């Protein structure tokens, strides 16, 4: 082994329950652990959103059992305004961090990146294990905020200062709850940094023979670029959280200006700037939303090709170019969250330029997907339906971005439900659709059993129609100036909009219920699903070349893997219209 070779791992099968399933070094187990954590988190986040939506539609409705969750927050089971804000804060935080950063990237990426590059494991299995358990600890600390002192924080997932930086005087939940939030997020950053290190090193150093960078599947490319973005983005959020903790607990004034009078008390801070928090937060926050969606780009591209039976229009090169452009540009646009925040107005014009330019790679990506459906031999299974759904909701969500990218129209739409519609479409819907597509596609490989297609299709149709019913009306509410983060609508111009909120709430509850179909399908498949063939989708990438489903602990059973093509050798008129990456044969003629 010379100096330029990556470290070769000698793999010994793990023994014992703890080593195999708890403190496992196996990237597949760790991937499933992340996925399981994300599944738990998404259901908690969804229940929080149901509580929020119920309150918005029917503000004085008692919700049975709510006072068990919080005696202060829901006396007589009726949600207080501050508790609504706390639920909203925890909903946003849990979804953005513990679901959208965990599942598509840490979950599926951990499971499949090593396999897709032909490696036996990640480059640093111990870092990998640590990254999961640090993330898990972050989750525990986060959940503690529900049960301490006067409850969870209410400053939103964006935790703008000084609301979040002066401690308990600014509102209920702002004492211990907000501090726990900051600690949890700081821990989360550390976990993500460890994970990113692993993904990047594995992609660069552990590719098997013949797996040049150009031949890597699009999902792998997406995970790789996401890791690069995350490496730098979380490195910015970590000190921001630490500075926040310093302001809250140690009396510094990074974010607190002089002259603040809260509850009739003049606070002793001076010299700080609330805008500093916004800069530090959004410099992380904007790349973060691309961290949430880029794995979906890669996964959807990958699964789409297996179901259109042809390579992507533009091949892997154009899509990779789009993904890299998005990653790069994502660092230049953070100020578009701050157009009316008090920054120099000229900076708004500056930030809007890269913000509008970033629509170009997004549009090209959509054109490549739609152009790939042209002339395809589309197979409609649940995974491919969620891919098509992803394209549709990404178009919807991306287009509302045009309005928010321009400072002039953002003056009106800022902080309205239009923004809520935009980010839910691209994150809550598109990214989640990517996770669903990945689950239906890869579950046969992960558990060796097929999920039920009928249940899957019910899940898809109810969800697809449901999310449009929930989030499309929010655009209309935003155009009517419906302000966001309101726990109730008491203003003259908002009262006529309450019926729309009621409609949205009902749609949200029904769509939420439809997710139980998915949960049941997972559970059923795990124990009673029919055994999965080795390659149920007739796909070509390396995960379908493993000797078993689930793969053995070292992925390929010790076999040396050699790769001869990229992962999209689909096409040809013969009975077998695909060529595996490991098969030296050439692509069948069309």
């Amino acid at each position, binding site marked *: 082994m010379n100096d330029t070779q990556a470290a070769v791992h000698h793999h010994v099968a793990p023994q014992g329950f703890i080593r195999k399933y708890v403190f496992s070094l196996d990237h597949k187990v760790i991937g499933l652990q992340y996925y399981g954590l994300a599944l738990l988190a998404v259901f908690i986040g969804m229940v929080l959103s149901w509580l929020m939506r119920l309150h918005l539609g029917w503000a004085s409705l008692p919700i049975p059992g709510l006072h068990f969750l919080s005696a202060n927050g829901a006396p007589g089971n009726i949600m*207080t*305004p*501050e508790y609504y*804000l706390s639920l909203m804060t925890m909903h946003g935080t849990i979804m953005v961090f513990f679901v959208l950063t965990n599942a598509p990237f840490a979950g599926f990426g951990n499971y499949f990146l090593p396999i897709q590059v032909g490696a036996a494991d990640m480059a640093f299995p111990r870092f990998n294990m640590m990254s999961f358990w640090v993330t898990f600890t972050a989750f525990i600390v986060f959940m503690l905020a529900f049960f301490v002192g006067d409850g969870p924080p209410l*400053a939103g997932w964006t935790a703008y200062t*000084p*609301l979040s930086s002066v401690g308990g005087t*600014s*509102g209920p939940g702002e004492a211990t709850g907000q501090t726990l939030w900051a600690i949890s997020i700081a821990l989360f950053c550390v976990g993500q940094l460890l994970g990113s290190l692993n993904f990047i090193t594995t992609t660069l150093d552990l590719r098997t023979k013949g797996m040049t960078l150009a031949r890597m599947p699009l999902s792998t490319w997406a995970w790789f670029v996401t890791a690069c973005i995350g490496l730098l983005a979380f490195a910015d959020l970590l000190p921001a959280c630490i500075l926040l903790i310093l302001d809250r607990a140690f009396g510094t004034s990074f974010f607190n200006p002089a*002259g*603040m*009078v*809260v509850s*009739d008390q003049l606070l002793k801070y001076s010299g700080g*700037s*609330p805008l500093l928090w916004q800069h530090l937060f959004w410099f992380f926050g904007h790349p973060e939303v691309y961290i949430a969606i880029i794995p979906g780009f890669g996964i959807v591209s990958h699964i789409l090709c297996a179901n*259109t*039976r*042809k390579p992507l229009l533009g*091949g892997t090169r*154009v899509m990779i170019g789009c993904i890299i452009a998005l990653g790069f540009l994502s660092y230049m646009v953070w100020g578009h969250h701050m157009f*009316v925040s*008090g920054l120099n*107005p000229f900076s708004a014009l500056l930030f809007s*330029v890269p913000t*509008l330019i970033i629509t170009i790679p997004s549009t090209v990506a959509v054109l*490549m997907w*739609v*152009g*790939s*459906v*042209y*002339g395809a*031999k589309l197979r*409609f*299974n649940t995974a491919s339906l969620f891919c098509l759904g992803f394209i*549709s909701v990404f*178009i919807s969500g991306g*287009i509302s971005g*045009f*309005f928010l990218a321009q*400072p*002039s*129209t953002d*003056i009106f739409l*800022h*902080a*309205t439900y239009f923004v809520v519609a935009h980010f839910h479409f691209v994150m809550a819907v598109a990214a989640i659709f990517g996770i669903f597509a990945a689950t239906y596609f890869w579950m046969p490989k992960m558990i060796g059993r097929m999920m039920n297609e009928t249940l899957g*299709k019910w899940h898809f*149709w109810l969800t697809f129609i449901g999310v449009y019913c929930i989030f499309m009306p929010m655009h*209309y509410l935003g*155009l*009517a100036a419906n*302000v966001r983060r309101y*726990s*109730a609508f*008491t203003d003259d*111009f908002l009262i006529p*909009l309450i019926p729309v909120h009621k409609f949205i709430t009902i749609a949200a509850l029904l769509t939420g219920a439809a997710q139980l179909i998915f949960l049941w399908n997972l559970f059923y498949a795990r124990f009673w699903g029919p055994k999965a063939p080795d390659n149920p989708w007739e796909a070509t990438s390396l995960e379908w070349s493993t000797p078993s489903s689930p793969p053995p602990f070292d992925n390929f059973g010790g076999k040396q893997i050699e790769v001869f093509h990229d992962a999209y050798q689909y096409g040809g*008129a013969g009975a077998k219209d695909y060529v595996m990456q490991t098969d030296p044969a050439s692509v069948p003629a069309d």
Partner: protein
Amino acid sequence: MGGKAFAVVLTIITLLSAYFIVAHTWWLPADISTTGPAIDRQMDETMWEAGILFLAGQLVLALFCWQYGDKPGSKIKHWPGGPKPVVAFGIIIVGLEVVALSLLGSKAWGAIYMTPAASDAIHVDVQAEQFAFFFRYAGPDGKFGAVHPELINDASGNYFGLDPRNDEAARDDIVVGSLTIPVNKPILLTLHSKDMIHDFFVPELRIQQDIVPGLEIPVHFTATKTGRWEIVCTQLCGLGHYQMKAYLQVLPQDQFDEWLKQQSGD
């Protein structure tokens, strides 16, 4: 089978979504400011372009799903001309759109934010706090008294922390809970916050501006219609955020002068 169903459902969703926009079922309230029409034009421009892209994207996707299912005998077709024309189309069309929107929109933005207020603008000092807005007029002497945070006392109504005993300019300052202004006159607001970040939003004026503690942020506008509208806080500021509001009262000039005289008399 799945493909045709997807195409139909997507088409219905697309057309329904577009309907409510075209029908203006829920829409921006009528504009009452001099700078509003430029913003509304920008909104319309953007809506046209967004609408075309939305309809085109969704309906073409639906069409392809309808046509290109895996039927026996179907053959793979590749996009005629390959990816290059499509990529070029994407870059050029979106690029042009981006340039157009940026150039057109910068004027609408600049008129509000990068133009100084008229020299004869009526100056109103605005203070935001958890959970109310207060407005201060300079009074007959035309001078605002100094603000002392340590003197702020909501209970006694000293919202701005004025010191009328030692500060002559503060003695005649008028402090009220609604923003009363004359129609067709330029108004200059100086926004400041005593505690959290708040926001001053009047949808009909097409004015929205965060109010940041530690900063004094100027915003100016001219109202073109008389009437009463709501000013709402749009930056999360605590538990009372949802009910933090004030009224904007736009009066004919003579009624405003009358009102101001009455306030000064108190």
